[in-house]
């Protein structure tokens, strides 16, 4: 009962009596931290995760749980890295703006990863479908040769070759693939793997549309999944 009386009083007091620019309040509960106000927000220091800042009870080395009927091992027994598995993307949207036929546009997306263990990780990618708008679609690229797909890259430089594709930092310059597509019932495709902390990769999106493509705002969602190696 006390909690229901005290909590609103605290919140009310904090909101109306404190200058927000100097205000810093941390409320900590069972398994969560609630940070209010600008000053309470931590700034990244170059290491995305600082030891000591993220120490939930579950974030423990060599965690072995025995309970009625089962045994569970969280992470790895001899893993010296006690870090979460993290993916960071430089933007939550790639905006091509208002696109015009025959004028290819490129945009970049940076990825940064923390492996979570010494076993490493991979990043897989899949789109929910082609760029779509009101029943119209922009198809994926098939590159200059017509032969690139979601697995095999190929050269794409001709201005009359249309579609959406991407180049990743392990591919030669001007080589592109299309995205794996859920609408075509395809699997996510691995685009990057590594094992170092703060390992990074850059993707270049390329979009070109044909003269007969209606000029509208097309959209899709592309998912990047970081998955730990076993």
């Amino acid at each position, binding site marked *: 009962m006390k909690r229901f009386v005290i909590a609103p009083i605290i919140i009310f007091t904090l909101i109306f009596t404190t200058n927000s620019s100097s205000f810093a309040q941390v409320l900590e509960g069972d398994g969560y931290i609630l940070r209010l106000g600008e000053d309470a927000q931590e700034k990244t220091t170059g290491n995305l995760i600082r030891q000591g800042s993220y120490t939930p009870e579950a974030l423990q080395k060599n965690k072995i749980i025995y309970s009625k009927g*089962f*045994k569970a091992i969280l992470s790895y027994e001899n893993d010296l890295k006690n*870090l979460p598995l993290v993916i960071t993307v430089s933007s939550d949207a790639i905006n091509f703006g208002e696109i015009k036929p025959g004028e290819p546009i490129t945009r970049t997306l940076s990825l940064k990863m923390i492996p979570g263990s010494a076993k490493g990780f991979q990043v897989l990618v899949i789109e929910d479908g082609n760029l779509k708008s009101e029943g119209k679609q922009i198809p994926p690229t098939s590159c200059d040769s017509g032969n690139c797909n979601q697995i095999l890259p190929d050269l794409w430089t001709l201005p009359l070759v249309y579609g959406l594709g991407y180049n990743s930092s392990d591919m030669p310059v001007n080589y592109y693939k299309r995205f794996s597509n859920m609408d075509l019932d*395809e699997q996510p495709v691995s685009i990057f793997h590594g094992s170092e902390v703060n390992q990074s990769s850059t993707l270049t999106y390329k979009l070109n549309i044909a003269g007969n493509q209606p000029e509208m705002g097309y959209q899709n969602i592309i998912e990047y999944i970081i998955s730990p190696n076993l």
Partner: protein
Amino acid sequence: MSEISLGVYPPVIRIKSNAEAKVNLPVTVLNNSENSIQVTITLKPFYDSGKTDGSVSYYAESDAPGRDLDFLKVVKIKDNDQEIKTINLYPKEYKTLNLDFITPKSFSSDYYFSVVFSLDQTKNDSKETISYVKPSAAINVLLSGDNFSSFAVIEELKTDKVQFSGPIKIDLTVKNASDHYESISGTIVLFDTFGNPVDKADLSSEIILAGATRKMREDGSKSGIDLGNKFMLGLYTARAEIKSEGKIIKSQETRILTVPLIVMLIVIIALFIILGITAKVLKKINHLNISNHKNK
């Protein structure tokens, strides 16, 4: 448009369980971004990718096995005993949730699935063309029945039979021929011609899924297995032993002849020189003998 940073812990959970056991385990999701985000939670079955490096693959939607999908219907992510499918996280906030399920009645083979936390993305009407980015982080869960025998085998112990310099590079591939995941470790010992051990490599412990194959690595190494040193000469034997639960289950040997190339070249050149000198000396002796004989 803003930077998004999403994390999970632990990266992998391994469970050995009796039938119909009530499993409840902590899983943590964290928002390392500067903005609040909404995160959705989904479950995806996976299988070994076949790349022998411990990476996994996800099924296309229509290919996911019905058995796995049926099991995932009973797997819940709970917050304070309430099942949730989404969660809001403030900047730099983490939240520990519970992975909750009852194990199946029978365990003829394992279940492998990811708990995937994703930025909740929705498309908005716009005159501009936008490709939304959806970062996701997966916790890989392995569920196996308790009590079974190891069926791991050494699929390949490979090295060049003749090597011209050390160290000796060895490839060891292990196959898990059972229906359950196994944690496999081991050692490779190098013996000289006289049977004396000259070097040893401890193998990194690897989790191998049912039916999958893994290329073993030396503990602490990112590449393969190297034994010995640069200058090696003679016939060596490499013995590989693999272990499951600390017990040796299989062993295999291979022999390697090492002859340092430079040493070999020097020996050959020296031989030619010696032979050449010997031939000349013999020729002279022969010539002298013939002259003496004529004079007599």
